[in-house]
């Protein structure tokens, strides 16, 4: 019976039909999706923190408004994604607990600090750029609610990426100090952004299954290569050097070759030893714990109101 259901399920995926919440699905598919979607939602929420850092220091009113709107969009993405995740039978509070306890992960990139205004541009250009590369194929993911959430997310992300690039472009045309600020920031963000695609295919055991289920459409290394090819050209426009002496055009492959990623750093940050892991989780936990009485008050008031209404009707 199980085998039969599995076959029907896979055949549906092979026909490019969407799997919906009420459809039968293998436990492993459900688990993989909960892990991936919640990780994605958590990344949006934790990702608000490094950028939120600069809202109060944005250099102009226009930039301040744009950055607030961007960070607010990320809260919105978190909401759609938590909702998509809830369709798989897990609630938002449980997902938060998993984030706070360290059981659930989020994108390691947000464990790096934002040290200058240029970092807000670099996050838009490189981090959102890498995220888009990862996320556009997810609009065709086999799980309906996730795919639909991603359509909306991707539209806003590409706007964010342009906004980040524009911040950097502006710096590239500015004073020597601004140009130096730009280069210094790109130096710090380039490698962490490259790591956003995850381990090399050889070290990514889940990739094959996720590809078969059409949750994933391209491998980590394919996406990373695409990212390098695009960024190299964009870096020329910004007049910045990517901090990798080994980047060069490979005629035969039709792609840019690039240097070795420091995987030790990658795993250290994943394990919690990045520059800001502790602060990020502490900030999330503080907001959640300090908000407990507010959430309780809202529920208590709603109950009182409902009780009064019932009494009136009676």
């Amino acid at each position, binding site marked *: 019976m199980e085998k039969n259901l599995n076959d029907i399920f896979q055949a549906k995926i092979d026909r490019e039909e969407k799997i919906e919440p009420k459809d039968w699905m293998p436990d492993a598919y459900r688990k993989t999706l909960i892990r991936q979607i919640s990780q994605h939602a958590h990344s949006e*929420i934790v990702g*608000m*923190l490094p950028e*939120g850092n600069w*809202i*109060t*220091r*944005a*250099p*102009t*009113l*226009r*930039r*301040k*408004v744009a950055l*607030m*709107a961007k*960070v*607010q969009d990320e*809260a*919105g993405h*978190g*909401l759609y994604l*938590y909702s998509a995740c809830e369709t798989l039978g897990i609630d938002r509070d449980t997902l938060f607990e998993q984030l706070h306890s360290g059981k659930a992960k989020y994108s390691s990139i947000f464990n790096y600090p934002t040290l200058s*205004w240029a970092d807000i541009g670099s996050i838009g250009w490189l981090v959102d750029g890498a995220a888009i590369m990862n996320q556009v194929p997810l609009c065709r993911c086999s799980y309906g609610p996730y795919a639909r959430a991603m359509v909306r997310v991707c539209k806003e992300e590409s706007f964010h990426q342009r906004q980040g690039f524009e*911040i950097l472009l*502006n710096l590239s*045309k*500015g*004073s020597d*100090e*601004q140009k130096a600020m730009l280069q210094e920031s790109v130096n710090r963000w380039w490698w962490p952004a490259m790591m956003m695609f995850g381990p090399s295919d050889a070290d990514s055991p889940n990739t094959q299954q996720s590809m078969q289920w059409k949750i994933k459409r391209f491998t980590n290394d394919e996406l990373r290569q695409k990212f390098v090819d695009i960024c190299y050209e964009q870096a020329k426009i910004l007049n910045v050097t990517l901090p990798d002496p080994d980047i060069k055009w490979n005629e035969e492959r039709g792609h840019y070759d690039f240097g070795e990623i420091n995987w030790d750093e990658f795993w250290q940050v994943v394990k919690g030893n990045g520059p800001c892991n502790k602060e990020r989780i502490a*900030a999330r936990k*503080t*907001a959640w714990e*300090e*908000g*407990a*009485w*507010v*959430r*309780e*008050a*809202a529920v*208590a*008031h709603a109950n*009182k109101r409902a009780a009064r209404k019932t009494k009136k009707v009676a």
Partner: protein
Amino acid sequence: MANHLHDFLIHLGDNALILGHRLSELTSHGPVLEQDMAMTNIALDLVGQTRNIFQVAAKLQGNGATEDSIAYTRDATSYKNILLVEQKNGDFAKTVLRQFFYDAFNYHAYQRLLKSSNKDIAAIAEKAIKEITYHLKWSAEWVIRLGDGTEESNSRINAAIDDLWPYTEEMFKFTDYELACHDEGIFPDIHGIKAEWDEEVKNIFAEATLTVPEDGWMHDGGKRGVHSEHLGFLLAEMQFLQRAYPGQQW
């Protein structure tokens, strides 16, 4: 240059900017995702209003002034916001109550600015009033929820009332520039605002099971550039890049 009009614009813009900035400090730290977004939304509206107001002020000022030169290159003594809006966020109860006191005032003030004899101000009010109506709805609902919620939320909002009530009178203590604008129909019927504000607060407090305090000693000074200690720190943070790298484009 008509000084009272310029001062009045600066006062209006500073109120919106400083409160918007305070709320923006909370982005990504809200008690629940939906309210994080709501507070950022209000902050966005307020800074947006600031931009519209300062653009008019900059035109009046001339000499290459811009919305940003007005926001980022003045020291605290040139800021004309009321003391209420520069008060620290505190807990969610204090944030909500500060917002409610301001929104209730602002709503009735902007109803009047819709009829301003100054076309620019009337146009700004036209756009802002829709936003302010929503802000007032949000903050009033939260005052009710917290007042008539749990014992803890009730005691927190009462503590916030103790802290913030002494800053409310300043809104109705009109300065020379406001009175001059009143005389020219730029800010019509300002003397009617207080009664409407009192009514608004009385009604919402009643629903929230809260008591309107007796009037005691009231602080003022912000509108004349005499601020609390908080504003200097806020400006130091907000103006950092413009001060560290003067005259750059961003």
